[in-house]
């Protein structure tokens, strides 16, 4: 298990290097930078712009800038945000935490509901429950997150039960610690539910078809033949084998989860990485864009790493490869 873990960790390094190089190259291709917007401001002299350009190293070729950036990134400094006039690292950590919270709870809710529903649908194949789950899956797979998020906003606005966007109330700082926590949770509920709803359908369908596949296997027939109770057959024999492929799905679904979070954050004004990326995008703040994309990738890569570990832990065949 340890060699497996180590191998996977070593595997992460070229990916992170490649991603940062790729985003940096793309940003270098971008027409104009933050200073071009600044230079159109008549109150700032061209000499000052030139000075800033030197200071931030924007006059150097992109690969020099990249090596410079990489050296700093390794010490935890992701560069300077032109738009926010502060270190990008500090900005990103707060946003990264928000995105993590949103994705984590959404995953928890989606899997917590999808797995039992999928099992139920598979065990009662072709029953009303199964058909209903099938219908929910189709609707859930087809409803765009944009629409779902807009509907949630509409709901919040019409009922006033939930705050309309944001991660905390304006008077957050004046609240007691306990009330602060509740306030944050209150803001978290709707975005989490929207994200979870869009994840749920795919997992449920996968769980159902996995379990149906294993229920067809010969060892299930032999378990039944030796007179085990149906519950024992399903939950002890079939289910354990049906879970494995689901762990692979877990790894794959993380990319979709982060893209989903991107949409939800931007519509529901949740201050996460996706929203920061868009803000940085419109401000032409290259450093911040590169940093957010690299951090989002890191989040995904770590998620995949955890999924791999889970898979290796549950299936010895994989760690012996």
């Amino acid at each position: 298990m340890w060699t497996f873990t180590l191998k996977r960790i070593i595997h992460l390094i070229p990916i992170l290097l490649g991603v940062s190089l790729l985003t940096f190259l793309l940003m270098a291709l971008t027409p104009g930078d933050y200073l071009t917007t600044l230079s159109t401001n008549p109150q700032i002299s061209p000499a000052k712009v030139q000075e800033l350009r030197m200071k931030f190293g924007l006059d150097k070729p992109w690969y020099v800038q990249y090596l410079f950036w990489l050296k700093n990134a390794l010490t935890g400094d992701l560069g300077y945000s032109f738009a926010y006039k502060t270190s990008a690292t500090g900005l990103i950590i707060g946003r990264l935490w928000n995105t993590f919270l949103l994705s984590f709870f959404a995953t928890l809710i989606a899997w917590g509901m999808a797995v039992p529903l999928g099992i139920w649908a598979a065990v009662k194949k072709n029953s009303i429950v199964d058909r209903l789950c099938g219908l929910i899956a189709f609707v859930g797979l087809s409803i765009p997150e944009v629409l779902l998020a807009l509907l949630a906003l509409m709901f919040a606005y019409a009922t006033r039960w939930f705050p309309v966007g944001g991660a905390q109330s304006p008077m957050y700082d004046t609240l007691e610690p306990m009330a602060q926590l509740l306030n944050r949770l209150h803001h978290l509920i709707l975005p989490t539910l929207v994200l979870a709803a869009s994840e749920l359908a795919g997992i449920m369908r996968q769980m159902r078809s996995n379990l149906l596949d294993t229920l067809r296997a010969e060892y299930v027939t032999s378990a039944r033949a030796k007179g085990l109770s149906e519950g024992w057959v399903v939950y002890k024999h079939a289910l354990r084998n049906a879970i494995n492929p689901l762990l692979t799905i877990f790894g794959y679904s993380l990319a979709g989860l982060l893209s989903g979070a991107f949409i939800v954050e931007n519509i529901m004004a949740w201050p996460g990485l996706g929203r920061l990326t868009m803000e940085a995008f419109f401000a032409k703040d290259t450093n911040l864009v590169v940093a957010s994309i690299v951090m989002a990738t890191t989040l995904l890569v770590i998620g995949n790493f955890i999924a791999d570990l889970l898979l290796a832990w549950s299936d010895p065949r994989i760690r012996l490869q």
Partner: protein
Amino acid sequence: MEPAAENPVALKPVEVQHLSPSQLFWRRLRRQRIAAIGAIILAILYVMALLAGFVAPYHFERMDRQRFFHSPTWLQFRGGKLVVPRYKQVEGSFKYAPSHSDYQPIRFFVRGDKYKWLGLVPSNLHLFGTADPVNYPVYLLGTDQYGRDIFSRLLYGSQISLSIGLIGIALSFSFGMLIGGMAGYFGGWSDNAIMRLSELLMSIPGLYLIMALRMAFPPKLSSVQMYLLIVVILSFVRWAASARVIRGMALSIRERQFVLAARSLGQSNLRVIVKHLLPNTFSYVIVAATLSIPYYILGEVVLSFLNVGIQEPDASWGIMLNAAQNPGYLTDYPWLLAPGVAIFITVLAFNFLGDGLRDAVDTKNQ
């Protein structure tokens, strides 16, 4: 003498049908009711998109400055005729009340705003409308914040949404098949390099990669350039996934005897890949392509919604939904969500069709 005359029952020939794999596929597909529903919905949507100028009562840029946020006009039957009532604005608000006595019949094949059939033939004939469009407009789905007819804009927008998926899969799958096929067939360092590159692309969360690519281009572009840029970006992000699967299939297909036979007949590598190897991946490609069309539709919607895709005053489902972002608008004028419903129906239809195709291709469950 005919033996059948003596014993007609015993000698009736047993009907043995020899069906080719594609015939079997069509037979299985016809049994999928849900796929048929999806196909019918899509056929209707595509016809309406092709004839958008004709079916839409107005041009997508036409603004009615008297009627911002007009609610959908309810058509009624009066004296056996379909009529549209006259709406009066309630003083001091964007609310409109229908009149019970003042109405005009809906007419078919009326003259109205100019447009071009399929972008070529100029015309001003519209499927329906009224004789007096100034006082009796037909806004089936209401109007937006500029007083533009949402139904008409929806139809014009569907031209973008419905075509972007087809062009997108054509691009990404032809690219993915060629690259994946070559990687799997040749193996070696090129295979290694391609797989590492695709791994890299797939380890960046989709929308972040799309935004990074989008940022490398100027923010303002002409409509056509923007459309092409969106398709190219979305396909570029997507080709890796299909290339990896095709590569896996190519790895096993290249060991089959017919590939060996083709090679020993002296066919070139490219010919073996295109003529013999890739056709064996078609059943996967058809299903995967159908199921990935929604990705392109949603991709355009998200980009336009976030103001980095199709721009006003052009009509696209994403840019139309952008107007619905204001929660105050949403509760007062819920018809602004109509494009969202249109996206849902389209994506659902593609999922129905794709699912049916998958079951028809899959012989495991037969």
